[in-house]
């Protein structure tokens, strides 16, 4: 092997001092990167890893089932496979299925999980292959999906959009995304100070079997070990002794021999003496007495055994203990103590929990593997139980376990978790809700934005600033702009454009390599040697590997080997000088991104490489393999000197950024010139871009979604960014280029309102389509009855079809193209009245009795007429008839519809003006939108101004402008283009008023700006009522628009009326217009009577009628029912 050692390269100083030539097109690495990694690829990679590698490991770990009933009987899994998605057409006949069919038919896109098993039947040993044990929902575009590797034409024939990123599941017809979950990293020591300033340290150990948390706490200067399985904190020294280190000198050597460390640790040693614990047995007895009792079946163990098991298997579970050799675990514990001691005196040793290197992201694959292992264990436990129960019983046939293997447990477990989002894992006591979400298909960007979303485990209600604020270590990994406002602010994050999330890598070869590179194994060393200041401790994924003398050599050689491709590119190594560690990480869930390697002041990637890339001779992988580019994770970034631009490269520089705009995410990448905007504006746009209407995918017209918004004539923005091209937003845009005049007009544009041009609206500006779905399921019931659909009813006298059924075809389902009014019927379904009990038996000779039916029509409800776009008649997985009706509405913009530019500047349409009343320029150009200039000064969205100018220049030149972050067309160039074409350099124009016909007294800033129509439209919100439905119980008006409810006059409004003294109005609002009720009250007894008769007094003599709120009457009656008598005392209004 040939290695260049970094220091040895002869370089000449003059060479370095020269400015480094910029590689112009190095951004072209990005599309190559996005082809293999990034964006949604991490979901797919993670899922692929799960179904191809991890699932086999899980089965391997749980491969054998035995029973106590029969020592000979066993069941062994030989292998497991996940097939390709299919659907069972009829018994044992399957057919491959496409994701789109699953969407339409409300089915789950899943593949069979099959196993090869070996088991005993009687005395025979049987091997069976390809036995199904359940079904696995398949992620779209994963290795087992039918869509992978298909050409756009093939995808089109499967009704699938070639641009759709995949990475989600189709479960029961809905698209579900498993959000990326952020967690504190496992198996790492985190030193923290609590509120009182006490320093403690904790480790969350996680292995396949167990998850446990071990902490060291200080109590009166003594160190104690805290663990869930211990009922009380145990002194650390006792634990050391219980693990076999009886000699206190040895303990101290492990913790550290510095004066300061020893003096801090001394009280703990003393405590042990006070407890009279000197030997391992004494210590184990002590620990055993503190072990929390658990109901265990099987053999009962002694306290000592219990303590030893706890120390070996539960406490710090990730440190392996082989044959009760506790050395490694003792060292780890000693290190924890040492870290706490150091942190007590020096605050710099306290870890930062929010540091992104301490975070791990859990993806679909990891979450599913947790779930699958749980289900698989339960499945095996069930088989074992069956074996235990059945084998001892005498029976005719031989016991065959295969007949007892039920598929539905695993299938339902997986599907239910994905549809509900409740991740329940019994063995870890994990119960998480909201892990999955329905993929939002509002626009292409909202779908893509959802795939890059990271949700944090933090409680949203907690008012903490630490986890919410932007951490410097998130640079380049997470988008600094894209986070929601409000309660989830900073807790929900989004990945940046080039972030990749690692999957687990084999540890074994890395361990071997580390030992070969001079790492000395722990077992050979004494405590003092390990904590000696001349050596660095080497960790692999949180476990101590050993010590190394020359950490520099280790790190450098390791990196060279990685660049040469001998180690996986995602394994990271970095020294930590403060703690004197070298951390090697190969675990999954770390975030990393690629950088160009710089050697001796020169970036490795040259123009030549990029040319080859463009010509297609090179792929991104080649860049990795040749050591031109490498991935750095957050921890390793800290050990590198990364230059942002070529001009900043110095001799110390180790890496070069590929493109600075990649530090933004998908949503922020749409904003032109974001670096000129005030930062919250970019955040607002990130939220609004997801509400913009546009196109969803090339298959948008084949989809039948509950609600779908489409723009009629979407346009590619005049001012693009590189991100737009990379994510192919230009192929599925969401917005239109509007000619905007920044001026005030008519006063209907205050508070961000916009003025629209009527002719533009006529010509299709902002026109959108709203699709809505209604479904109808025709079921069969247990008693042989079934739902039916009847043809339209006819009027008995005239023979004409009744109005409600006018849209129906002869088959009782509305026909496509039909216009539907409010309350008209879409499907004339009727349902049998009796569905549970059996029908009356038919008397022989007579036709069987017809079941009685009740009408349950599916009807349309809405303020505007709607058209039937298409009707789908199919069946779902349960073989029930499924009718889906897609309804369409075309909407043109109206006053109150919401629009927004790409700079967080939203506004509603305030007025639609005829074109002849609009201002026009010398060239006769009329604006589509007039925007009030007051929107600018306080918002400081300079990017919008530049977008307008760049757009205008683009229009004049006939090409797109570029507003890429930290780059893009320069204002100076744009201005000179304007001047060249005879326009004013500042983008302002001479404008004539359309109302007076005279020129305006100011020059108007005029040009194209990309405008998005947002999903909030007045027709969906308008609501008023004079009279209408009332709630049954209180007789008050119902609440909410969907129930045609009343508008509430709330407490505060009531207070106003009281303060003003408008008593009659108060009475009207609160009683007469709400729930006035005439009640008969007996003035004698004060109780309420009925129809002029008092039941209590048995007389009608003293009855008076009065009006009270029905709710009040209800209250009285409820009080009566609980033995409280409210009596009304009445007085004539003339008496006093």
């Amino acid at each position, binding site marked *: 092997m040939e290695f260049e050692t970094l220091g040895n390269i002869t370089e000449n100083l003059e060479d370095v001092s020269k400015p480094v030539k910029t590689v112009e097109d190095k951004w072209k690495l990005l599309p190559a990167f996005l082809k293999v990694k990034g964006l949604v690829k991490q979901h797919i990679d993670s899922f692929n890893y799960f179904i191809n590698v991890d699932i086999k490991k899980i089965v391997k770990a749980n491969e054998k089932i035995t029973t106590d009933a029969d020592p000979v009987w066993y069941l062994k899994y030989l292998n497991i496979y996940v097939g390709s998605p299919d659907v069972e057409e009829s018994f044992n006949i399957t057919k491959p299925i496409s994701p789109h069919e699953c969407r339409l038919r409300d089915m789950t896109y899943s593949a069979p999980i099959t196993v090869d098993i070996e088991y005993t039947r009687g005395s025979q040993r049987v091997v069976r292959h390809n036995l199904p044990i359940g079904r696995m929902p398949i992620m779209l575009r994963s290795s087992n999906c039918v869509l992978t590797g298909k050409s756009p034409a093939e995808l089109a024939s499967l009704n699938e959009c070639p641009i759709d990123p995949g990475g989600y599941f189709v479960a029961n017809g809905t698209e579900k995304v498993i959000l990326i979950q952020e967690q504190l990293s496992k198996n790492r020591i985190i030193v923290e100070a609590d509120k009182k300033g006490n320093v403690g340290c904790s480790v969350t150990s996680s292995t396949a079997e167990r998850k446990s948390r071990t902490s060291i706490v200080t109590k009166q200067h003594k160190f104690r070990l805290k663990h869930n399985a211990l009922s009380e904190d145990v002194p650390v020294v006792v634990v050391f002794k219980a693990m076999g280190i009886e000699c206190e000198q040895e303990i101290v050597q492990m913790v550290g021999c510095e004066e300061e460390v020893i003096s801090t640790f001394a009280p703990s040693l003393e405590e042990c003496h006070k407890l009279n614990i000197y030997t391992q047995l004494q210590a184990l007895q002590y620990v055993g007495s503190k072990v929390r009792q658990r109901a265990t079946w099987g053999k009962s163990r002694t306290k000592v055994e219990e303590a030893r098991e706890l120390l070996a298997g539960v406490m710090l579970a990730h440190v392996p203990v082989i044959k009760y050799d506790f050395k490694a675990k003792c060292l780890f514990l000693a290190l924890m103590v040492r870290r706490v001691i150091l942190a007590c005196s020096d605050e710099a040793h306290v870890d930062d929990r929010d540091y992104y290197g301490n975070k791990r992201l859990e993806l679909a694959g990891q979450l599913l593997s947790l779930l699958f292992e749980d289900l698989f264990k339960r499945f095996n436990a069930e088989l074992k139980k069956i074996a235990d129960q059945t084998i001892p019983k005498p029976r005719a046939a031989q016991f065959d376990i295969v007949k007892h293997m039920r598929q539905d447990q695993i299938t339902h477990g997986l599907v239910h978790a994905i549809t509900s989002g409740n991740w329940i894992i019994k063995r870890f006591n994990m119960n998480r809700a909201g892990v999955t979400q329905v993929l939002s298909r509002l626009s292409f960007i909202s779908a893509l934005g959802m795939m890059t979303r990271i949700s944090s485990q933090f409680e949203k209600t907690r008012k903490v600033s630490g986890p919410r604020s932007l951490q410097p270590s998130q640079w380049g990994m997470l988008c600094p702009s894209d986070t929601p406002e409000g309660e989830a602010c900073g807790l929900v994050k989004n990945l940046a454009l080039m972030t990749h999330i690692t999957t687990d890598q084999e540890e074994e070869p890395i361990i071997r390599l580390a030992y070969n590179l001079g790492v000395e194994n722990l077992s050979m060393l004494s405590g003092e040697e390990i904590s000696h200041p001349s050596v660095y401790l080497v960790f692999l994924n949180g476990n101590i590997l050993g010590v190394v003398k020359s950490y520099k050599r280790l790190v450098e050689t390791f990196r060279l080997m990685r660049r040469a491709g001998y180690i996986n590119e995602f394994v990271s190594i970095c020294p930590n000088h403060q703690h004197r560690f070298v951390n090697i990480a190969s675990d999954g869930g770390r975030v990393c991104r690629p950088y160009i390697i710089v050697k001796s002041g020169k970036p490795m990637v040259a123009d030549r490489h990029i040319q080859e890339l463009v010509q297609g001779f090179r792929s991104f992988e080649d860049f990795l393999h040749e050591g031109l580019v490498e991935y750095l994770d957050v921890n390793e970034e800290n050990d590198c000197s990364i230059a942002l631009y070529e001009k900043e490269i110095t001799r110390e520089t180790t890496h070069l950024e590929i493109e600075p705009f990649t530090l933004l995410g998908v949503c922020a990448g749409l904003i032109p010139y974001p670096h000129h905007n005030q930062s919250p504006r970019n955040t607002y746009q990130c939220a609004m871009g997801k509400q913009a209407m546009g196109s969803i995918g090339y298959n948008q*017209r084949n989809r039948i979604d509950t609600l779908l918004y489409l723009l*009629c004539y979407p346009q590619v923005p005049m001012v693009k960014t590189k991100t737009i091209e990379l994510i192919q937003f230009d192929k599925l845009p969401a917005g239109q280029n509007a000619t905007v005049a920044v001026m005030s007009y008519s006063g209907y544009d205050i508070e961000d309102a916009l003025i629209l041009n*009527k*002719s*533009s609206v*006529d*010509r299709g500006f902002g026109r959108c*389509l709203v699709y809505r779905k209604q479904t109808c399921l025709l079921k069969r019931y247990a008693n042989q009855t079934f739902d039916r659909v009847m043809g339209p009813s006819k009027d008995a006298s005239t023979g004409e079809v009744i109005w409600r059924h006018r849209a129906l075809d002869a088959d009782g389902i509305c026909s*496509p*193209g039909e216009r539907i009014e409010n309350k008209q019927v879409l499907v004339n379904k009727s349902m049998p009245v009796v569905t549970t009990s059996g029908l009356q038996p038919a008397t022989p000779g007579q036709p069987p009795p017809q079941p009685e039916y009740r009408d349950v029509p599916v009807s349309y409800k809405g303020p505007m007429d709607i058209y039937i776009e*298409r009707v789908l008649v199919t069946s779902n997985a349960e073989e029930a008839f499924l009718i889906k009706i897609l309804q369409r509405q075309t909407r043109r913009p109206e006053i109150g519809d919401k629009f927004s530019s790409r700079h967080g500047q939203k506004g509603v349409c305030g007025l639609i003006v*005829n*074109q*002849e009343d609009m201002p*026009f320029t*010398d*060239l*006769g*150009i*009329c604006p589509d939108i007039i925007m009030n200039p007051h929107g600018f000064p306080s918002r400081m969205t300079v990017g919008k101004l530049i977008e307008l100018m760049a757009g205008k220049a683009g229009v004049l030149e006939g090409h797109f402008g570029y507003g890429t972050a930290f780059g893009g067309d320069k204002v100076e160039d744009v201005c000179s283009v*304007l*001047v060249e074409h*005879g*326009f*004013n*350099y500042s983008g302002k124009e*001479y404008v*004539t008023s*359309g109302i*007076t*016909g*005279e*020129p305006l007294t100011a020059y108007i800033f005029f040009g194209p700006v990309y405008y998005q129509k947002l999903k909030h439209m007045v027709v969906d919100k308008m609501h008023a009522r004079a009279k209408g439905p009332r709630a049954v119980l209180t007789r008050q008006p119902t609440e909410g628009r969907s129930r045609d409810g009343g508008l509430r006059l709330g407490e505060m409004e009531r207070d106003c009326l009281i303060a003003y003294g408008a008593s009659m109005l108060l009475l009207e609002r609160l009683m007469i217009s709400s729930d006035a009720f005439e009640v008969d009250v007996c003035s004698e007894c004060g109780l309420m009577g009925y129809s002029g008769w008092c039941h209590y007094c048995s007389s009608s003599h003293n009855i008076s009628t009065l009006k009270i709120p029905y709710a009040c009457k209800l209250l009285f009656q409820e009080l009566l029912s609980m033995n409280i008598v409210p009596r009304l005392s009445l007085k004539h209004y003339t008496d006093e």
Partner: protein
Amino acid sequence: MLLLRMHYGVILLAEVATMAIEKSSFTITPLLSKMRCWLTGLFELKVKCIKNKNAPKNATDPDELFIHSKVTTDHLKWVPMGNQARKYGPQDIRPVHNDILIAKLRPGQELDLKMHTVKGIGKDHAKFSPVATASYRLLPEITITKPCEEELADKLAECFSEGVIRVEKNNGVKRAVVANSRRDTCSREIFRHDDLKNRVKLSRIRDHFIFSVESTGALSSDVLVCESIKVLLGKCRHFLSELDSHCVDT
């Protein structure tokens, strides 16, 4: 004067009548866009897309592979109603352009529509508007207050659109003269140059209007101008008669 120019734009944009399709009935699903062409009366369109059997084997172009795959305005057929057949020939009533794409079809798809066209005005819907745009501007006026000579003259000429400033050579001295101010686009570029800023005065002649009428094609722009003047005259007459009638009343 003001009245005239106001009404002018308004009338052209909004009140000269043309015809457009108002109602259309379809018997095909994959079509959405409302059709727009300038027509009168009833039009029919019946197109069925079929495979081209004589297409070369290696053809990939849909135009070669299929017959009638593109439906254009050429496929529209005028159906005379009432006495229309007697009054107009087929050349009188037709789409303005014959090559406007209406839809693309594939074998098995069929388009069958009937379109009713009506006469309307732009006020009602932009599709009836006979002009793409009609507007006016005031004639720019450029006065050179202080003479610009030599390099300044060239620089001045640069600052304006081509042909606005002419550089003349008089007695060996280059000098800028305003040649044709009408050609100026009024970019106000000179105000960026401190040395030129105070040498030129830019203004507009307040009673010199330059109208531009850009027709969409149904009627030529000269006809449009005449039509609009007729509408304006009609309005004036109506206004006068209204005035008269009111005078009688009071």
